[in-house]
């Protein structure tokens, strides 16, 4: 079915390579060290970067269909949008994880079977 598969040696190299990529990116400015002086303004304003990363992972998963490739596939009938809104509401009011997941999944499943 597949054109060609990676050999187990290639998979091993890939895993080691990806581990190196993790170190390289997560410690990128550590490797640069004192050679690069980051301005105070940037240091202060990157404090929202991690929040933006998690939001950036979450938002397309909630608003676009699974396996979507573009924004034009946004559709108000998508079950994940309604499940997401319900879960947001429940978490906002209760601050509890279990009801959030249960209500979110319930709304998601209902919408998936009805529409």
């Amino acid at each position: 079915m597949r054109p060609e598969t990676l050999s187990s040696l290639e998979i091993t190299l890939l895993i080691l390579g990806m581990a190196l990529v993790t170190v390289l990116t997560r410690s990128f400015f550590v490797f640069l060290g004192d050679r690069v002086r980051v301005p105070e303004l940037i240091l202060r304003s990157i404090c929202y970067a991690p929040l933006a990363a998690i939001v950036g992972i979450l938002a397309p998963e909630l608003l676009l269909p699974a396996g979507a490739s573009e924004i034009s596939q946004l559709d108000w009938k998508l079950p994940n949008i309604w499940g997401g809104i319900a879960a947001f509401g429940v978490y906002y009011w209760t601050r509890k994880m279990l009801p959030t997941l249960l209500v979110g999944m319930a709304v998601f499943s209902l919408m998936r079977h009805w529409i």
Partner: protein
Amino acid sequence: MVACSIESGAQRSGFYNEALPMSLYSLTSKLPYFSWAPPQQQAWRDGLRTMSGSAVTIFSWALVTGLAMGKSPLSTDQALAMSLLVFAGTAQLAALPLIAAGFSVSTILVTAFVVNLRFIIFSVGVQAHFSHLPYWRRVLLGYFTADFGNLMFTNRFPEVQTAQERSADDYYRTYFMYGLATGNWTIWQSGSILGIIFASQIPDSWGLEFAGTLALIAVIVPMLDHRAARWAALVAAVVAVLAYSLPLKLNLSLAIFAAILVGILADRAPKGVR
């Protein structure tokens, strides 16, 4: 409250050290946690506790990633090795379809690098906050500091301390970060390994992926407690969705750049707006 708990921590660890037999004491006193001063042990526990507060979210997200790896063409051993060594969920998820399609190793590595671009931005913070640490320890700390560690650290300590401030509080933040990293790694690997092992028993129709997505809401909502954070999150969400058609998850990097711009604007705005 903090000063209070530091004191009780000092008493407790002092008690344990004296109660241990001499040989055991000399052995444990060389181990990381046991060789630290009581305020540092307290900081580590604080970090671990902070990370544990989001345990369900991290566990769900890791479980979903593990399930995806278990269902992929990777063998169980390969999936476990990837989880334990790579320790970067989004890059792993991005690599799976490419492995299945038989792309070359170099193509997949470039993809992983681009998907991980956000960590380069986070590493500015790792370098700035922990510049007092030895080089290799800083590199190691960077490796263990993923999305959740960065999120919780910057949320608690947005400003970088000066060298004097650091030694004045016994490097509390460094040991707090060690605690965050320990918690993040342990919780993530538990979920990921369980997912890999049980992948074949769980049918796709359960929609568990969506539960993992919903769990992220629980870490995001508490961070939206002030105006600048809400603006940053809103802008990041809009950009991430609008730019979704870009390859290599570049929408994520764009969303972060947009949020940083919002941060700069909020910083320049009058204090009341922040």
